[in-house]
């Protein structure tokens, strides 16, 4: 039956190419749009996901990770003394103005971490030394932001918000969602770069004691005035959810992906239905001769599956090409195995749905029509 389905489908090559192209474009749109979305969302929560903290503590009422209101350092000591807390670290996340070699400025997200920090440190270091972050003016930036920051190497000196800084390390792949490059610095430098007070911080990162109940520790901290505490998973989800839902980013990406699916449905449905109509007398003859509906439906569904398979392979290849092309533009398309498998299943379902009209046509086909001229 596979052979029959393939031969019928390939008999008119132009139509088959159009069907495969329709599925491929559909697959491409779904993969690239959702891949871009996942890439952006990965950037949005990258600091949280890479930190080794069990809990994130912030000033109460902060809705958004990147724009958190600072809190006083005295709260840190109260949190650190909470039963169940093994280790606590201060962190600052704020914005500063990075002076460019050309004379202009570039907004940056300053990430202040403690000297000898254990819960959040820059990762994927390519050049330089993380120990040098303890230097009074040391900063670590990401290679992918070279163009924005107009620097090329470790040792470059620039001012951030009027304060001197020196690049002591280069990472690879640490990108922010806000498009303002991350600049890692020690806590004191970060406060200066952000023009915040000497006691200001935005987050307290917590490692709970081995065997301690994370939820119980979280509840103890949340019960303190002026503080909210979140588990790592909650904080990550909260951050991605904010950007996805509050800004409409998610709706935009998924709308395009859904339109891709609709395009695929219409194109494949049209091609399969036309093909069924072209062969309606032959199918009628088979029914007259005693073929069961299921046997003929199988032939049509196999055609849909072949279209899905070919379309997915070509669409997937196009998506991989788009991923490489967008990487050059500093855009991250996250084609995860889950996304690829999910899209493959979606493609099969889409093509099967597209075949439904043809299936209905065959199911309703009266075999007596073969005698009607």
């Amino acid at each position: 039956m596979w052979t029959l389905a393939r031969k019928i489908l390939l008999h008119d090559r132009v139509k088959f190419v159009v069907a495969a192209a329709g599925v491929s474009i559909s697959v491409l749109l779904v993969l690239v749009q959702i891949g871009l979305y996942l890439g952006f969302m990965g950037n949005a929560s990258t600091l949280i996901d890479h930190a080794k903290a069990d809990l994130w503590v912030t000033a109460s009422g902060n809705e958004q990770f990147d724009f958190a209101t600072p809190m006083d350092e005295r709260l840190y000591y109260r949190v650190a003394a909470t039963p169940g807390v093994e280790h606590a670290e201060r962190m600052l996340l704020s914005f500063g103005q990075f002076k460019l070699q050309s004379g202009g400025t570039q907004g940056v997200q300053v990430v202040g971490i403690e000297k000898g920090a254990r819960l959040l440190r820059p990762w994927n270091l390519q050049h330089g030394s993380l120990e040098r972050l303890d230097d009074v003016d040391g900063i670590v930036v990401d290679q992918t932001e070279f163009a924005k920051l107009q620097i090329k190497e470790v040792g470059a000196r620039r001012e951030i918000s009027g304060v001197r800084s020196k690049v002591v390390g280069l990472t690879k792949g640490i990108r922010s969602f806000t498009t303002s490059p991350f600049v890692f610095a020690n806590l004191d430098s970060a406060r200066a770069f952000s023009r915040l007070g000497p006691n200001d911080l935005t987050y307290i990162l917590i490692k709970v004691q081995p065997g301690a109940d994370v939820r119980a520790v979280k509840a103890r901290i949340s019960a303190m005035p002026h503080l909210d505490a979140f588990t790592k998973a909650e904080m990550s989800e909260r951050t991605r959810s904010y950007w996805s839902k509050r800004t409409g980013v998610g709706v935009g990406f998924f709308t395009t992906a859904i339109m891709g699916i609709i395009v695929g449905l219409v194109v494949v449905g049209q091609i399969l239905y036309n093909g069924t109509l072209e062969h309606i007398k032959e199918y009628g003859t088979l029914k007259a001769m005693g073929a069961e509906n299921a046997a003929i439906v199988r032939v049509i569904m196999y055609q849909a599956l072949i279209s899905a398979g070919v379309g997915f392979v070509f669409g997937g290849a196009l998506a991989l090409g788009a991923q490489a092309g967008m990487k050059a533009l500093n855009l991250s398309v996250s084609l995860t195995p889950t996304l690829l498998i999910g899209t493959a299943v979606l493609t099969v379902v889409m093509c099967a749905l597209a075949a439904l009209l043809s299936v209905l046509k065959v199911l309703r086909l009266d075999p007596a029509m073969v005698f009607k001229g």
Partner: protein
Amino acid sequence: MEMETNMNAIVEARVVSKLYGAGETAVTALSEASLAVRPGELLLIEGPSGSGKTTLLSILGLLLRPTSGQLLIEGQDAARLPEKALPRLRARTFGFIFQGFNLFPALDARDNVALAIRMKDPKVRSSVARAEAERLLTMVGLGERMHHVPGDLSGGQKQRVAIARALGGDPPLILGDEPTAALDSKTALAVMDLLRGLTREGRGVVVVTHDHRLRKYADRVVRVDDGHVEELRADALAA
């Protein structure tokens, strides 16, 4: 309950009528027709256009249910069988051939025949169906052309493929709806020779036609006129 059929007929219509529509607008396509087709005979059905020939053939082939009357196949009234039982009964009883051949243009002659064999019985393995298709195509004189698609075959050759396809699954009765209408005279007679040959194996053949020249191949001829079926006597045939 099993019913006694007319001299072991493959299929027998008893007082079969077919009405289309209802009430005042009802049209009688077939009126109290009785007809039996026996193994080893070639029956010709003649009649003008719109006379009810195709309706009769469709009823005999279980493609249309009669409004009244009985259709006896394998000792049972097939007209009363549930819809889901009909495909299997059709598959083991009938092969069909048509004026327009109805072959899949994408498949070569062998695959067209093999497909019908597998559609009739999905349990038949692909290799077995192909071997059987090759045997049938050789039998109808197309052994050398079995790997050609219909587009590369003449009208007569296409009809031979259709006959081979109709023989798939070894049905006892072949029903043909004007199988020679699209063919030139010489080819039409060759096709009829082939169908006549099938009766020598004990198979029944029913052919609907307008062409009186085909009478010489028939064991019996029935005429359908305005829904009424009448068997022509030998003296009428000679006239």
